[in-house]
């Protein structure tokens, strides 16, 4: 379970997070929605240790990770799939996957490269190709797989469906649902609603560096006011 409590952070004097509080239990898919600049990506960076929080806690289980360097947050069981993918362009597909491999902390069955190839066979075909030659969708799947192979307990995925073909979105959704079946706490960051609505269990809406709504998908869909105030572009 990812437990973020009263998280504050700032770029110099500009406050970007003003007490962000939310929980993502195990085996749950949660989604943070919000406009650009609402603080979604900053929340991610603060959790991952790239933006040192000035106050608040980021807990995995009982351990507080707030302010730790990125590699220690990763070792504590948090994976991060960034929006810009960040593959190792000059390494092969398989080398990219191998670099992600890491023993998990909980007793869950470990992910294997082969079963991930089964989810998206195109990557198996191209296992020896330099990752820089992959299409955008293939790179997105590779980034996701590389993170999954680290056997994390919590995974943060920034804009997973941005610009992807429907078939790739399908494989992506399947992988995310499999993560949920294996008990991971999954946090998606999205601008668009359509795809995440069929996956997600919980919805958080962010605005001005705070969580302004937290609830089930049904509650969110019933709340026109929230959508109008914080999401729809006027």
């Amino acid at each position: 379970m990812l437990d973020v409590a009263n998280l504050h952070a700032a770029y110099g004097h500009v406050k970007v997070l003003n007490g962000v509080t939310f929980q993502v239990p195990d085996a749950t898919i949660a989604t943070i929605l919000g406009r650009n600049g609402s603080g979604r990506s900053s929340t991610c960076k603060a959790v991952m240790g790239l933006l040192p929080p000035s106050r608040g806690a980021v807990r995995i289980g009982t351990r507080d990770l707030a302010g730790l360097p990125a590699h220690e947050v990763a070792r504590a069981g948090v994976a991060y799939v960034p929006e810009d993918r960040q593959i190792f362009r000059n390494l092969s597909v398989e080398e990219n996957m191998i670099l992600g491999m890491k023993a998990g902390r909980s007793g869950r069955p470990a992910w294997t490269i082969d079963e991930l190839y089964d989810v998206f066979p195109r990557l198996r075909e191209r296992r020896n190709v330099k990752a820089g030659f992959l299409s955008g969708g293939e790179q997105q799947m590779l980034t996701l797989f590389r993170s999954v192979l680290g056997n994390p307990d919590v995974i943060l995925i920034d804009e997973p469906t941005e610009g992807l073909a429907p078939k790739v979105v399908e494989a992506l959704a399947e992988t995310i649902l499999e993560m949920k079946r294996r008990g991971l706490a999954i946090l998606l960051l999205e601008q668009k609603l359509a795809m995440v609505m069929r996956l997600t269990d919980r919805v958080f809406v962010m605005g001005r560096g705070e969580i302004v709504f937290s609830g089930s998908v049904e509650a969110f869909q019933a709340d026109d006011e929230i959508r109008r105030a914080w999401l729809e572009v006027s």
Partner: protein
Amino acid sequence: MSRIVLVLLGLVAAAALVALPAFGGLATLNLANKIMIAAVFALGFNLLWGQAGLPSFGHAAYYGVGTFATIYMMDAIDRGGAFPTPLLPLVGAGAGFLFGLVAGWFATVRSGVYFAMITVAIAELVSALAQKWEGLFGGEAGIRSIRTNWGPLDFQSTGSVYYLTLVWTLIVLLALYGLQRSPFGLVVRGIRERELRIRFLGYDAHRVKTVVFALSAAVSGLAGGLLAISDESASMVLFGGAGSAFVVLNTVIGGAGVFLGPVIGAALTTSFAYFGSSLSHFWPFYLGVVFVVTVLFAPEGIGGAILARWRRVRDGAGPLIGLGDLAGLAGAVLAMAGLVLLIELTGTICSEAYRAEIASLKGVWPPVRIFAISFAPLTPWPWLVGLVALIGGSRLALGAGRPILPRLFAGRPGPRADQTRPGESA
């Protein structure tokens, strides 16, 4: 098929290296020693640059530290110490590793240019220290020691030093090849690609970079140890900027992206210095030209060019050597001849010796002899011939070879497009 060819090539090369003392003279063995030492140094340097993407411009520090440490150990053996002579390079490696661990911890806090600047600063620091601290570094004269035999092994002849150097060079080659293919090597290459991502995957990038730096310094120190065994002396000159520059030169000319690239570069530049220095005073200038031409037209180095050509032949995309290549080669040779003529003429008539000759001939300019041909420096002809050969040859080489220059400039927006500010355009 191609793997068999490679293995066969390797075996032939190994046999030739083993048999070299049987038919090579003393000079050949000395040259081979120098090449192997330069190759090990460049391989160590390239572990940092080619694999981790960290450009160190002060690697002479670790090389020199390895040499001095080994000389001191040789001295200790000479006084009755029990250290086995064949393992002496490990002393250089150990000294390089320890020093590299400390220096690397500081230097790898930053990347890119800042990293390079820190490495230069550390090298300058060591160089200054070596000049001041005569007690340890021996001042201008340096320090000397001698090789001691070990058990049945005799280390007095150049041939025995050659074999010792050869064995250590092969050990370094195998170890570095293994390292490159190991999971650790993969992480190192990942750092070169995207350091941030490596941290997200749970690796402590700074620690990995420090270890790579120390390993690179250890290999450089091992090369320094081999030099100590070969020369039986060490001096503060080792810490000068030339050492740091040459290893960069070797690696770039040979190709940083190819495993054996630094070896190719070390063999070429060491041979170049060896033969060139007896032919011309200006050989460092020509080496500089080779460096610039390599960076401009074969940025992947000679090793990279060979590899690209081999792939082309393997894929059936072109012949090993085509007509265009021959024309390009002819152009390059012509341009080189023109350049050599111009440089030798200019260099000679500007030299003190030539001035003295003019004075002794009462103002008459004597002919300049270049490779047994006489040129009259006061007539325009040698200059014209040189210029025409240089320009014509370059054009031929550029036209026949891959026209990289136009592509280099086509990809970038011109300065005018960059400088246009809103409101300024018509």
